[in-house]
C-alpha cells in the first residue's frame, strides 16, 4: 500500500519544516554527562526551533531518588548552561510540562512497570500517541537487561500506527563477536529498522557537506581517484586526556573508541562511489560496498603505530601522563594514540593508502580529511624553482573551524621564478551559519522522524570491526607496551617511522 500523501506537503515547498509527529523520548542513564551536556540542550534547541511536536515528553530513568520537579530543575540547569539557542521562558514552560522521572535500577521489575504506566499516562494526557524512543545512554553491558525489561513490560511491543525506537551510543561492541552479540540482543527486542546507532560525526554539517562537495560539483570528482591522489590522511586529534572516563577508556583504547566508528565512517564517505540516490538504502549500499573492499597490509605491525601519552607540558599547562591518571593501572597497555594504514581495493583507489590516526593529548583538537595529491608528472621549472613546493592537498576540516582548504603552489612575487605552497580557504563560519544546528539536534530529530540515513546499520558496524580486529589481535600478540609520546606532541616517533617507510609524512593539522 502506498503511504497516504499529505496534501499540504509539496516538494517545491522547501520552507516547510519537518516537525516530528506526536512522540516522546525516554533516556536511560539520564544523570550522565552526555545526557546533560548534549541530549537535554539538543531537545530544548529543537523545541525552540519549533521542530518538536506539541505535547512532546521527556522521561528520565535513573537510580537517583528524584521527583519530577528535581528532574525538571536538572534539565533546566543543563539547558541554561549548554543550549545553543537563547532561553525562552515560554518554550521552556510547555516543554517542561512533559517531563517525568522514573526512579529505579535496571533489574527492578517494578520500576519498569512504573515506566510503562508513565508512558501510558503521557499517551493519554499529552497525546504522545504511543510513539516512544528509548535512548540508551548507558554502558553496553546493561543493554541486555534493559532490553529484556522493555520486552517484559510490553514497552517494546510493536503496534500498528505506533512506533518504538531504540537509540544506542558507541561503543558498538569491542570486537566483531561482541558487536554481533550486542546486535543480537537489541534485535531480539527491536527490529533492525527501529535501531538507531548514534555516530555524532555523521550529524555534523561538514560531514554531510562531504557528499555535496563530491557529488554536486564537477570540479572535484574527476581528480577523486588513484590517478591523482597519492594518499589520504584522516585524523581525529583531541587535546584533552581521558578526564573522568577512565573506567570506560581503559582496555578500549583509541582504535576502538574512535577509529572503528568515526574514522571508518569518514573513510567510507570519502572513498565510496556515487550512490544512485540519497535514499538511505542506496547510501548504505555504497558505504558497505566500499567497506567490504578495505584491505589491510600484510605486515600489520609495520603499517600501524600505537602510543600512550606521558606527562608533561601541554599548551602552557602541566598535565598527567596516562598511567598517572585516576583509575588507570600503572601497567595499562591501552593505547591513547593509534595510527593505521588501510587500502581500498577498488579500481578508483588501487594503490592509494588511507592513513587513519586518532589520539588524545595531541597538539590541538582537530578532525580532518586530507587528500594529498601526486606531484605534477613534469615540472617545466628548474629544481631550485620548486624546492619549496609541496604536494597539492585538499583538506576537509571537520572540526573545529569547519571548512575546506586547498593547498597549491604559487609564484613568490619577485624577479625570479620561485614556487611556494599557499592555501585557499573556504570557511563555513564565513560563508554560512554560526547558527548551524548541533549534531545531536539533527540526529534526535531524525530518530523522531524515523529517517535512518545518518545512522550506521548492523552491517556497517560489523564490517568496520572486521577491519580493526586483525590489528587489535596483532597488537595483542606483540604484547608489549604502546610507545610513549609526550603530551602536546603529534604522537609517538613510531607513527612517523611508519609513514617514513612509505616515503611520506604526516600533515601537521
Amino acid at each position, binding site marked *: 500500500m502506498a503511504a497516504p500523501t499529505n*496534501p*499540504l506537503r509539496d516538494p517545491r515547498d522547501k520552507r516547510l519544516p519537518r516537525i516530528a509527529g506526536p512522540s516522546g523520548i525516554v533516556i536511560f542513564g539520564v544523570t550522565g554527562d552526555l545526557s546533560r551536556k548534549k541530549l537535554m540542550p539538543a531537545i530544548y534547541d529543537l523545541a525552540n526551533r519549533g521542530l518538536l511536536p506539541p*505535547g512532546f515528553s521527556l522521561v528520565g530513568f535513573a537510580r537517583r531518588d528524584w521527583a519530577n520537579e528535581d528532574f525538571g530543575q536538572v534539565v533546566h540547569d543543563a539547558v541554561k548552561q549548554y543550549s545553543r539557542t537563547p532561553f525562552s521562558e515560554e518554550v521552556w514552560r510547555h516543554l517542561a510540562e512533559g517531563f517525568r522521572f522514573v526512579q529505579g535500577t535496571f533489574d527492578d521489575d517494578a520500576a519498569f512497570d512504573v515506566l510503562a504506566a508513565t508512558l501510558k499516562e503521557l499517551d493519554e494526557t499529552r497525546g504522545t500517541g504511543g510513539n516512544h524512543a528509548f535512548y540508551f545512554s548507558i554502558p553496553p553491558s546493561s543493554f541486555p537487561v534493559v532490553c529484556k525489561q522493555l520486552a517484559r513490560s510490553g514497552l517494546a511491543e510493536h503496534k500498528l500506527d505506533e512506533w518504538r525506537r531504540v537509540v544506542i551510543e558507541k561503543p558498538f561492541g569491542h570486537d566483531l563477536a561482541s558487536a554481533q552479540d550486542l546486535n543480537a540482543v537489541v534485535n531480539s527486542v527491536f527490529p533492525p529498522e527501529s535501531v538507531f546507532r548514534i555516530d555524532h560525526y555523521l550529524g555534523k554539517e561538514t560531514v554531510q557537506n562531504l557528499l555535496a562537495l563530491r557529488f554536486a560539483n564537477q570540479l572535484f570528482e574527476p581528480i577523486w581517484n588513484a590517478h591523482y591522489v597519492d594518499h589520504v590522511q584522516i585524523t581525529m586529534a583531541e587535546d584533552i586526556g581521558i578526564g573522568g572516563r577512565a573506567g570506560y577508556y581503559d582496555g578500549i583504547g583509541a582504535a576502538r573508541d574512535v577509529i572503528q566508528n568515526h574514522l571508518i565512517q569518514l573513510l567510507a564517505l570519502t572513498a565510496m562511489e556515487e550512490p544512485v540516490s540519497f535514499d538511505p538504502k542506496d547510501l548504505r549500499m555504497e558505504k558497505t560496498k566500499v567497506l567490504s573492499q578495505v584491505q589491510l597490509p600484510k605486515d600489520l605491525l609495520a603499517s600501524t603505530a600505537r602510543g600512550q601519552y606521558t606527562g608533561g607540558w601541554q599548551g602552557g599547562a602541566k598535565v598527567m601522563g596516562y598511567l598517572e591518571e585516576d583509575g588507570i593501572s600503572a601497567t595499562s597497555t591501552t593505547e591513547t594514540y593509534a595510527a593505521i594504514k588501510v587500502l581500498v581495493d577498488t579500481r578508483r583507489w588501487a594503490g592509494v593508502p588511507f592513513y587513519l590516526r586518532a589520539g588524545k593529548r595531541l597538539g590541538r583538537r582537530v578532525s580532518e580529511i586530507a587528500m594529498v595529491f601526486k606531484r605534477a608528472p613534469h615540472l617545466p621549472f628548474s629544481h631550485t624553482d620548486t624546492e619549496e613546493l609541496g604536494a597539492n592537498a585538499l583538506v576537509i576540516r571537520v572540526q573545529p573551524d569547519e571548512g575546506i582548504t586547498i593547498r597549491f603552489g604559487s609564484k613568490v612575487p619577485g624577479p625570479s621564478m620561485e614556487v611556494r605552497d599557499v592555501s585557499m580557504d573556504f570557511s563555513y563560519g564565513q560563508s554560512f551559519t554560526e547558527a548551524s544546528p548541533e549534531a545531536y539536534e539533527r540526529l534526535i530529530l531524525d530518530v523522531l522522524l524515523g529517517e535512518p540515513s545518518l545512522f550506521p546499520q548492523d552491517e556497517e558496524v560489523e564490517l568496520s570491526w572486521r577491519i580493526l580486529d586483525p590489528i587489535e589481535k596483532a597488537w595483542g600478540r606483540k604484547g608489549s607496551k604502546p610507545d610513549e609520546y609526550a603530551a602536546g606532541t603529534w604522537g609517538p616517533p613510531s607513527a612517523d617511522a611508519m609513514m617514513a617507510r612509505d616515503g611520506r609524512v604526516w600533515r601537521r593539522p
Partner: protein
Amino acid sequence: MIIDLPSTTTSAINKSLVSLREKGGAVTTGRVLTMVIVTDEGASEESIAAANEASFEHPCRVIVIAKGSRRGAPRLDAQIRVGGDAGASEVIVLRLFGELADHGASAMVPLLLPDAPVVAWWPGASPAIPADDPIGKLAQRRITDAASAARPLAAMASRVESYRPGDTDLSWTRLTTWRGLLAALLDQPPHESIQSVTVAGASDSPSTDLMAGWLALRLKVPVKRTKARAGAGMQSVVLHRKSGPLSLNRDESSTATLSAPGQPDRNVALPRRSLRDCIAEELRRLDADEVYEEVLKKGLPKVAAAAKSAKKPTASAFVGRPTDVKEAREAAKAAAAARTVVTATRAKRAAGKPAPRPRARKATS
C-alpha cells in the same frame, strides 16, 4: 568599528573597504550574498539590526540605501560598519540626498560583491512592481513586507499583479511555523479527507489571507476566512473532517493549543516570528518560490471569491460544503414559511445542486 565618509563617492568607499581588509584582516571574500535594504532616512536602524543578526547565518554585505531629502544639491554620505557593529556582515549605509535620492541603483552597483546573488529588501513601502524597480532589477530576490505598508490588504492585493519570479513577502514567511505545524498534523493518521476549513485572523492581516489561500489551494476545499480585531495577526485554523475538527488556536500569550478528536489538547509555544528569523529564512533560499506564487495567483482569488459570494447568499456561495448546504436548506425552510411553496423549492434545488461536486473531487485527490 564605524567609519564615516561624508560627501563621498563609491570609489572612495571601495578603497576604504579594501584598506580595511588589509589592515584589519577583515575577511570579506567569503560573503555569500549582497543584501540591499531600501528605506527612508531614519527608518533604517531596525532593519540593519535584523540584517546583522541574520548575517550570523548568512554572512553578507549589507548595503543600506537611505533616501534623504530631495531638495538641495545631490550628495552621497556613506558609513561603513564592520566587526562588532555589523554582526557577521559588513554594512555600508548610503544616504542619498537631492536628485541622487532617485538614483540609488547607480550608487549601489559598484559595491555589489562579484558573482554573488543580490537580495533587495524594502522593509517599509515598496515599489509598485518590485521587479521593474532599478534596484529590484539587479536583485535575484526581492523581499517586501505587506504588513508594514499603510494599507496591508491593498498592498497584498497589488502583489498578485506585480509578481515576478524571485518576489517574496514577509507576510508569507511569518506563516512558516504555522504551516509546518499544520502539515505535521496531517502527517498523522487517520488520513481522512478534509471537508472544509476555517481560518481566523486579524482583519488587516495579509498573512491570514495567505494562509486561507494556501489551504484552499492545497486541500481543494472551501475555506472560510473570518476576521477578528485588527493587529492580532493569525489566530486559528480549523480543519473539519468527518471524525471531528482538528484545530490550531493561538491565544494572546502566544501559546497555541492543538486539539484533535479523541486526543488530549496539546500546547506549544508559537510566538510571532521575529524579523531576524524571517530574514534568515528568506536568505536560506534564493530561487523563486513557486508555492508562494501559486498561493498569490490561485489561492487568494479562491478565498476572495468565496468571501464575496458569501456576502450575498446565492447558490454559488455554497461551494458544496455539506454544513453550508445544510444551513442553506434550513434557511430555505424558514423562508418557505413566509413565502410561497414554489420559491422555497427553487431555493432548495439551487442550494442542493452543487453538493455532489466535492465528492467527485475527493475521488481524484
